[in-house]
């Protein structure tokens, strides 16, 4: 009985759609909405990049995500591990208060390095480049203190 009712309902809906009964109802898939969606994606770079600190050269943005540490976090140790993910085999440059390092992301795009912090404020720049000149950059601000908060 239920099956019969469902069958009739489905048939009725399909018939109504064919007849254009639902044309005036907005399901959110019309052209204007699609256009707006596309603009959001283009305007915001690609969705996989982490937020507003990402910059690109020649509008050839590539993926760069910092897994660790979180921006504005507090480190209780001088040594800090930087881990992230970018384009496979990209060249990654890390610049910190008293040093810099150049490394190569692996085949999955993962990379990691260890840096030394100075007491207090530390600005860390992580940038990634592929062979075509595509790039991305992330800035991290990490505070190093041994004082218990």
């Amino acid at each position, binding site marked *: 009985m239920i099956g019969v009712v469902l069958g009739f309902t489905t048939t009725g809906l399909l018939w109504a759609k064919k007849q254009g009964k639902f044309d005036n109802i907005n399901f959110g898939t019309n052209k204007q909405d699609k256009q707006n969606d596309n603009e959001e994606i283009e305007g915001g770079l690609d969705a996989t990049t982490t937020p507003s600190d990402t910059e690109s050269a020649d509008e050839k943005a590539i993926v760069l995500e910092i897994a660790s540490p979180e921006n504005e976090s507090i480190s209780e140790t001088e040594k800090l591990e930087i881990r992230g993910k970018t384009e496979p*085999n990209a060249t990654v440059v890390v610049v910190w208060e008293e040093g810099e390092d150049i490394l190569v992301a692996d085949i999955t795009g993962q990379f990691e390095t260890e840096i030394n912090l100075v007491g207090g404020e530390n600005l860390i720049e992580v940038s990634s480049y592929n062979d075509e000149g595509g790039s991305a950059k992330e800035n991290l601000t990490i505070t190093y203190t041994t004082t218990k908060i």
Partner: protein
Amino acid sequence: MVFAPVAAAQEGAAETTPSGEKIEQIRQEIQKKVEEKLNNVLNQIKKRAWIGTIEEKSATAIKLLTLKEVRTVNLAEDVKIINLKRKEISVDDLEKGQRIVAMGFVQTDGTMEGKRLVLLPSYKERKTKVIFGTITDKSSEEKIISITGSEEKYEVIISDKTGLRERKNSKISNITYEAVKVNQKVIAIITPTESNGSTYQAKTILVLTALPKPSAAPTEKADEKDE
């Protein structure tokens, strides 16, 4: 007779009520301790340091202008405020425009419970730059190269302290100045020279050696082996 066991059971239940209350009390105490522990763990996750300049202040809170936005730091009762001379001061000693780092716990409403505020020196923009470009000129007399990026051209001085490296596949190795050639793609870490703002000192130059494209014809590979 049917109800006797029931009555007996009810009497037994009445006798266990006090211990039931005790069990409930213990349960509540455990729950309280678990919540405290959980809060401590969550606080560790949300422990943050915000750096910015003071926009507004009151006896109990300050508004901090960070790079992204104005944020509110509510001062904890036991907040410590440290000046540039590492001396403890009071909130009254803080002034608008001072640069500070506020450390504490970010709350669910986006504000911070500030536990420790430390005054910072004025912001100094980092001069070190990372550039991607192509070597367009190399001096034969001095160790100076020109690197042309997407928007700018850099005159870069190479000294004995400059790290010269080459990337082949996934390996990075050291190279000599002679191996640095025009038309190579490079990533360079540079700083402006003190005397002249238009030239730069190279900290590191990484030459990106183009990988040979795989050959489609098997006979070409045989030829390469012979060579």
